[in-house]
C-alpha cells in the first residue's frame, strides 16, 4: 500500500524538486562559493580568498549605513502599511458598521496594486521632480513653497519619499487580504456586539483584530522581507542605481548591486547577498516567534 503511494507521489514531485534544485538551491550554493572569492565577473577566473570579504563587510561603514536604512524601513513599512490597510479594511466591512460607498473604495484603493512597480516608480519620480513636479507645484499653490525641496536628492527626504511610494502602492493589496479575512468573520458577532453597545473601535479591537491576527502576522513577515530588499523602487524612482538620490537612500540590496555591476566586485557582492539571506531568515524566524499568540477558532 505504502509502496504504491510513493510510486504515485514521486513522479509528481520529482520535476518540482529538480527545478527547485537547479534554479534555487544551486544558485544559492554558487553564491556562497563566489562570496569566498575575489571574482571580478568578467572572466572565469575566481581567486579564492577565504573569509576576507566577510571581514571587510564587518568594517564597511557604507554597508552599515545601508543596513541602518533597511532597519528604519523595517520598522516603518509594516507599521504604516498595515495600519492604513487595517483601517480601510475595517471601514469597508465590520457587518452593518461599514461606511457608505465601501464597494467603490475597495476597488479604487486596489488600483495601485495592478500597476507594475517600475511604472509606479517612474510616475512618482515625475511627481517628485523639483521644478516642474506635481508635489512641489501643489505645495507652492497652497502657500507651502518653503516646504518644497528636491525630494529625491535631499538627504533628509529621499528615503521617506520613496518609502511613501511603497506604502501607497502596497496598501491596496494588504487591504484586500484583510478584507477577505474579515469577511469570513460571521456578521452575527458584530450584531451581538452592537446590541451590547459596542462602537466601531471596540468591535475592531475586540472582535476583528484578534480573529484576523494570523493574517496580520503573515503580512508583517511579507512587509519585513520587502523592507529588507527595497531595491527596485529606489533605482526607478531616483532615476538609476548610481544617482545621488540612490546613493543617499542606499539600502543593502542596492549596495550589493552597485558593488557587482558598477564596481566589478562580484565576490564582495555575493558576500553581501549571503549576509542578507541570513538576516532574512533570522528575521522571519524572529517575527514568527515574537508574534505567536493564541488563535481563535470560529
Amino acid at each position, binding site marked *: 500500500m505504502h509502496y504504491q503511494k510513493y510510486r504515485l507521489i514521486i513522479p509528481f514531485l520529482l520535476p518540482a524538486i529538480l527545478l527547485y534544485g537547479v534554479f534555487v538551491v544551486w544558485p544559492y550554493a554558487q553564491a556562497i562559493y563566489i562570496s569566498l572569492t575575489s571574482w571580478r*565577473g*568578467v572572466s572565469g577566473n575566481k581567486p579564492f580568498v577565504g573569509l576576507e570579504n566577510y571581514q571587510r563587510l564587518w568594517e564597511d561603514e557604507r554597508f552599515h549605513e545601508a543596513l541602518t536604512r533597511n532597519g528604519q524601513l523595517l520598522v516603518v513599512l509594516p507599521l504604516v502599511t498595515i495600519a492604513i490597510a487595517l483601517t480601510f479594511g475595517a471601514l469597508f466591512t465590520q457587518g452593518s458598521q461599514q461606511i457608505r460607498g465601501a464597494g467603490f473604495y475597495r476597488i479604487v484603493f486596489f488600483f495601485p496594486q495592478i500597476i507594475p512597480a517600475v511604472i509606479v516608480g517612474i510616475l512618482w519620480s515625475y511627481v517628485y521632480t523639483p*521644478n516642474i513636479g506635481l508635489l512641489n507645484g501643489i505645495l507652492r499653490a497652497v502657500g507651502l513653497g518653503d516646504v518644497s525641496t528636491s525630494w529625491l*536628492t*535631499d538627504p533628509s527626504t529621499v528615503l521617506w519619499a520613496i518609502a511613501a511610494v511603497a506604502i501607497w502602492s502596497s496598501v491596496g493589496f494588504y487591504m484586500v487580504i484583510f478584507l477577505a479575512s474579515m469577511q469570513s468573520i460571521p456578521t452575527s458577532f458584530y450584531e451581538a456586539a452592537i446590541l451590547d453597545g459596542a462602537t466601531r473601535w471596540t468591535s475592531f479591537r475586540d472582535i476583528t483584530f484578534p480573529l484576523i491576527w494570523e493574517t496580520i502576522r503573515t503580512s508583517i513577515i511579507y512587509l519585513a522581507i520587502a523592507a529588507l530588499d527595497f531595491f527596485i523602487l529606489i533605482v526607478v524612482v531616483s532615476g538609476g542605481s548610481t544617482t*545621488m538620490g540612490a546613493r543617499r537612500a542606499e539600502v543593502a540590496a542596492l549596495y550589493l548591486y552597485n558593488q557587482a555591476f558598477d564596481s*566589478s566586485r562580484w565576490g564582495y557582492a555575493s558576500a553581501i547577498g549571503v549576509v542578507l539571506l541570513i538576516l532574512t531568515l533570522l528575521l522571519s524566524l524572529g517575527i514568527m516567534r515574537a508574534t505567536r499568540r493564541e488563535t481563535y477558532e470560529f
Partner: protein
Amino acid sequence: MNLELIHRLIADEASGHYSRRQILQRAAALGLSAPAVAALFAGAIPVRALAQDADNPLGVDPAAPLDVVIFKGGFGDDYAIYVNEKMYNKLYPDAKITYAGIQRLGEQLQPRFVAGEPPDVIDNSGAGPLDTGALVAEGQLADLADLMAAPSYDTEGKTFAETLVPGTQESGVFDGKQLLLNWALTAYGIWYSSSYMEANGYEYPKTWDEMLALCEEIKGAGVAPWVTTGVHPQYVRQFVFDQMLWKHDPEAMRNIENLEADAWKAPAVGEVLEALYQLADRGYLLEGWEGLDHIQSQNEWLQGKAVFIPVGTWLENEMKDSIPPDFNMVVAPTPSLPGDKIPFQGIFAGGGEPFIVPAQGKNVQGGKEWLRLLFSKEGGRVFAEATKSLSTVSGSGEGLDLGSAFASAQEAIAAAGGNTYVTRYQDWYKQFGEDVKAQMAELLQKQISIEEFQDAVQQLADDVKDDPSIPKYTAG
C-alpha cells in the same frame, strides 16, 4: 591536424613578430609534424584569409561572421550601421554581421565574457558600461598593436595610428599596450548661448573673479547664473572642479590621480574648492538643481532659466529636439584663477566613446578591421554629419558646416594647442569616483565644509591606495 593552431602560427608568422625558425620550433612543440608544417609554408594546404595585401592588411577572414555591439546613447548609432552596411559588408560581402545597438552594456555583455563568447567589437560607453579596469586586469582585451601599425583605410601613405589626433588615444594604453580606442573627440567645458550673451551685452569671463561678478549681474536680472545636474554630480566634479584644478596646478591634479599622500589637502585644491564653492554659497545655482538629472538641467538651460552649464560636446546632439532657434550654443574653457599654470585657453578635451576588441572574440581580426574602417576619413565624416560631433580622426571635421557647437568645440581645441587634458581616476577606480562625486554634491549643497570635503575624500583615496585588491594606474 589542428587547423586552429596552424592558423595562429601563420598569423604569428605574418605579423613578423616571430622568425620562421621560431614558428617551426613552436609547431614542433605543439605536436605538429615537420612535414605538415613544411607543407603549410609551401602553400600545399590552402588556408583562408592569408591574403595580407594592401586591401586586407589585418588578414581578415572575409567569410567570418562579425558580432558588433554599440552603445546607442547621445550619439545614436546611425554611424555604426553605416560602417556595417556601407563599409564592412562592401569589403566583405560574405561576412554576416550580427548587430546590436543597446544601453547598459555591462549587465548585458558580462555573461558573454564569463562564458568566453564576447562580441568581436564593442563601443563600451554610456551609463553602466563594462568595467574597463576589470577587463584589463583579467586580460580580456585584445592588443591593438597590429591595427595601430596597419595602413590607414583612406589616407594614403599613413599608418592607422598616424591618422588619429595626437594625445587622444593615451587613455587607451595600459602597461604599454593599446587596449582601447577612443572614437569621439570630446571637449568638456562651460556652455552658454552666444546669442543670449550678446543680446545682454555680456562677455564670457576669462577669470573666475569676472565670472563671479557676471553671475551677480545675471542674478540681479532675475536669471540663475549656473545650472548643473545634482543627480549626476560627476559633471560638475570633472568638467569644472577637475578642469580648474588642472589649470591651476597640473601637478596637484596628477597627485590626486596617482593617489599621492595628502594630495586632496594641497593648497591648490583648497583654492579651487573655495572658488567653486562661491557658486553655491552666493546662490548662483538654479534653485532645485540638486534634484535635476542631466536632461532636466539641460532643458532648464535651453529654456533660459540659467546661463552657464558644464557639459561635454555631445550636448547638442543629445538635446537636438528641444533647442530653440538661434540659441547658438558654444563651449568655453573654465575661467582662470590667479596663479594658474595653464593659460585660459587650456581645456578638458580628449578621446571618449571607447571601443574595445575582446581577446576571446571569435573574429578578433574582423573586430580590428571594423575599427580600421570606422576610424577613417569616411567614418569620421559620417559620424560628424550624423551627430555634429568631432571624432579622433585628424581633419574629420574640416570643411563641414555643422553649427555653432561643432565650430566652437573645434575652435576651442585648436586654441588650446597642446594644453588639453582629461582626468581618468573615475574610470580607474570606479568606486572612488562614485564616492568623490557624492562628496562633491554634499559640498555644493552645503551639507559639509571644504575641510570636511578634503578630509573625507583624502580618507577615501587612502582606502583605495591601501587596498591591494584594486589594480593601480599612473597618470603621466
